[in-house]
């Protein structure tokens, strides 16, 4: 299994009486892509933070590729996230003052998988595959259009060859044309590399890209209150 959740419960320490997650059981097989939709405030971001190991559940098991995130020491969890999990947000995916190449290099620096020369070739190939023209590689991220930024974000998320990609409303700030282009690129990249994908969005029109579509309200038993 790419993801295996069992009896996961979570609440923020600031609000001890308000449980945000209560997931009895949920799994994602390796190489599968799932679309999760749900209203904002339904514990969406919290679930993704738990999946990426940024948050540790109060109880329950979080296994990613058979590794128990909830039992890992901090250091190994950071390393695991850098090596195995890619993440694409709705916005703020890039350090605004670094250019595309540096942004991607920075991500690979935390994973420490490859030597710099090999890496630069990989980055350039990824950027070319994602239709970022070479003239934009050296511009600071904030000078790129939103569509370009999101595509660079995919490159950044994929540079460490993660087995799992988490996408948190990645298309919400894109116009319809860019949205379709982005989805097409993302899905082809993911299936080409056999990456498991958790795609969260409130936009049900995107669900046709996926074989598996689930509602957060069904996965999470305490999604009734915001």
């Amino acid at each position: 299994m790419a993801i295996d959740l069992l009896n996961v419960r979570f609440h923020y320490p600031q609000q001890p009486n308000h449980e945000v997650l209560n997931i009895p059981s949920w799994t994602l097989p390796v190489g599968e892509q799932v679309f999760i939709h749900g209203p904002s405030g339904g514990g969406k971001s919290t679930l993704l933070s738990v999946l990426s190991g940024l948050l540790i559940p109060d109880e329950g098991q979080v296994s990613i590729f058979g590794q128990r995130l909830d039992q890992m020491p901090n250091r190994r969890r950071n390393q695991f996230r850098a090596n195995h999990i890619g993440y694409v947000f709705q916005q703020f995916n890039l350090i605004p003052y670094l250019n595309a190449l540096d942004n991607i290099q920075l991500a690979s620096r935390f994973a420490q998988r490859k030597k710099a020369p090999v890496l630069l070739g990989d980055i350039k190939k990824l950027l070319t595959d994602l239709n970022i023209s070479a003239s934009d590689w050296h511009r600071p991220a904030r000078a790129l259009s939103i569509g370009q930024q999101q595509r660079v974000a995919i490159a950044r998320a994929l540079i460490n060859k993660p087995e799992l990609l988490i996408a948190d409303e990645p298309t919400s700030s894109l116009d319809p044309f860019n949205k379709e282009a982005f989805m097409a690129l993302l899905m082809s990249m993911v299936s080409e590399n056999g990456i498991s994908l958790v795609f969260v969005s409130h936009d049900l029109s995107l669900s046709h890209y996926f074989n598996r579509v689930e509602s957060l309200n069904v996965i999470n038993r305490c999604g009734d209150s915001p």
Partner: protein
Amino acid sequence: MFAKLALQSLFDRKGSVVLSLMAMTVSIFVLLGVEHIRHQTKENFSNTVSGVDLVVGARTGSLNLLLYSIFRIGAPTNNISWETYEAIASNAKVKWAVPLSLGDSHKGFRVLGTTGDYFDYFSYANQQHLNLAKGKAFHQVFDVVLGAQVAKKLGYQLGDKLALAHGIAATSFSLHDDRPFTVVGILAPTGTPVDQTLHVSLQGLEAIHIDWQQGVKMPGSTITQAELEKAKLQPKSVTALILGLESKMATFRVQRAINQYKQEPLLAILPGVALSELWQMMAVIENTLLLVSALVFIAACLGVSAMLLSSIRERQHEIQLLRVIGAPAYFLFFLIELEALFIALLSCVLGAGLLSVCLVFLQNYLLGHFGLHIGSNFLTGNNLSLMLAVICASVLVAIIPALSGYRQARIVKR
């Protein structure tokens, strides 16, 4: 890569960063400047006199005697008689005694009346004797030997004639212009008050005052220059004496004997001891200056920290992003520290640069007006360790924003 991240991040916030950088630069400039001038002054003063075992003058404070006789600062209180000089010079324990006579000036530079022995016995710094860059020591009554600065500032050459002024003001209305002196020698620079002094013979001083009474020129003088040179010009008194002794062991005994001299109230001092008294007095001022510059520096450090701290709020997304791509929370701590370190390093370079530029421009002014020879090489071990301390301090103060960055990194956005 991480250094690049820190630098780019600083560059991205250049407005506030440049201001904090300027505050740091100015504070480091002040700190280094005060420390450098402090050391140079001390070295200067200590270098001014060496090889002189005792300084003897009329009874006054030991500092006062040291200042007017050696540093040409302030005015002598009283003179000592020629008979006393002869008595002290004939003491068996005294190897040499050189009389000093002060009170006249030339365009703001002090005139020292002395004997030829002065050039043989007076030494400065590390037992260095005075050297003549040009010409020779004085032999005639109206010969004058110039200090290096005097010759340079006033543009005198060998053979030039100059008139001395009565008193020590920069502009004097009572000139000894009836009896000009001829420049016969120019001394090599020493970096001591000697450079700002005109040296003439005691006879020369006697000669220009011969028909003066109570400090005023008497009209109707008929004595000619030629007659003067022939006349026996025996001074009746001198301002101070510098002594060299046969044996250092005798110093305190000779000092006591002079201090208890029955015929005239005298004071003998050890230049080293008087200098250390001077340092004790100066220490308060020095330490106050150093304290103030340290406080200015701490204020600048806090300014940098405040700037970094406020930047953390506007960098929340950035911090979150770094965490998501695998940065541990402590990475943020080191990133902020690295930024503080870069600011400190750059400020050190800029502050040191500013100081060396200022020293180059101020050197002549300080030498001309205060007789301070401040070297432009301030990168001594002492100042380097000061810079190191500065960098350590700024890294230490940056712990506050760095911790805040660390905490921010531990908070997961909902």
